């Protein structure tokens, strides 16, 4: 497959930035074991920059790796899609990252493909359905960047926005209970959803604490529920809806149906358009205003 123009520009800019000493590291994507995988890659030497790639499977959000060196001094060149740039905005807002420590190379994103469909059907890229998160993406262009590697794209009309949430809301309480119980039963508590989440950027996490033991060590339905629901509430208003939690879940829990419900509630209650859209727009649950909704009995 001939390398596309964005890939070539990524490699050229990575080489320039590293060779010129403007950044000490570049984070992007490379080809994985299978053709439908493009995992993150960390590049320090200009001559390694040819590993970089941009294709239909660059789903991983590279912004979360900034947290691994959140107190460091190095400057990092980061390739960002629309959703990744929102993650960077959130990290800066949460004071986990200083803006000057990242050089953002924005990639207006045409929408990526579903790697799971690639694995199961074996069809080639052009015939694959869009990745789930991309089906109702409203912000394909990076909201924060130092340079753009391609022309901005027009957002596609979202397919069935919040369809999963609406379908669940239409059901009865008992049916909803059975739905979530059957899913949370299967949770392995591997914490992949937390570890991949740009909103989960606390240095200490309540789920890891031994004293007090908020979350018991047993992997049973009660503790799985507690974990899943508390995590969803903790990222309410800070979730950028990148869908990484759902993508990395090894048992395929519909985690975005929880996160999207909270995003929908915040939109209805506070008129909140989404987390990480600009550096000034703070999450509605992080400050108070006299005219906040106040539906108390």
């Amino acid at each position: 497959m001939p390398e596309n123009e964005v890939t070539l520009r990524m490699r050229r800019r990575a080489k320039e930035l590293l060779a010129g000493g403007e950044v000490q590291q570049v984070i992007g994507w490379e080809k994985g074991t299978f053709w439908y995988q493009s995992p993150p890659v960390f590049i320090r030497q200009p001559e390694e920059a040819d590993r970089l790639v941009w294709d239909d499977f660059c789903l991983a959000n590279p912004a979360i790796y900034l947290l691994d060196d959140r107190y460091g001094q190095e400057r990092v060149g980061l390739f960002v899609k629309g959703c990744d740039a929102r993650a960077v905005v959130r990290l800066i807002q949460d004071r986990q990252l200083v803006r000057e420590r990242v050089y953002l190379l924005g990639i207006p994103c045409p929408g990526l493909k579903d790697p799971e469909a690639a694995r199961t059907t074996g069809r080639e890229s052009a015939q694959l359905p869009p990745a789930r998160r991309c089906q109702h993406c409203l912000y394909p262009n990076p909201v924060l960047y130092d340079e753009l590697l391609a022309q901005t794209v027009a957002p596609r009309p979202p397919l069935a926005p919040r369809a999963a949430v609406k379908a669940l809301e239409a059901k009865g309480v008992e049916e909803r209970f059975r739905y979530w119980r059957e899913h949370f039963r299967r949770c392995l508590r591997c914490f992949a959803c937390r570890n991949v989440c740009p909103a989960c950027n606390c240095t200490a996490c309540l789920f890891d604490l031994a004293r007090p033991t908020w979350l018991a060590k047993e992997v049973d339905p009660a503790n799985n529920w507690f974990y899943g629901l508390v995590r969803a509430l903790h990222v309410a208003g800070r979730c950028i809806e990148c869908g990484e939690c759902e993508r990395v879940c090894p048992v395929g829990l519909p985690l975005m149906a929880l996160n999207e419900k909270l995003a929908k509630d915040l939109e209805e209650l506070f008129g909140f358009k989404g987390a990480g859209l600009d550096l000034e727009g703070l999450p509605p649950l992080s400050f108070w205003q006299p005219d906040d909704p106040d539906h108390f009995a």
Partner: protein
Amino acid sequence: MSYVGIEPERFRAAWVSGAEGARFARVVAELTEAVRRVGPSRKLGDA
């Protein structure tokens, strides 16, 4: 909580000032009565 299948009768948010003892008693009594009607919850147990 209702979204994940817990009966809405079990929850209530109420504004009660520290000076409103009688109101606090009434809110708690009403909630207790509502929870008693739906009975014990087994949903978040280990079942």
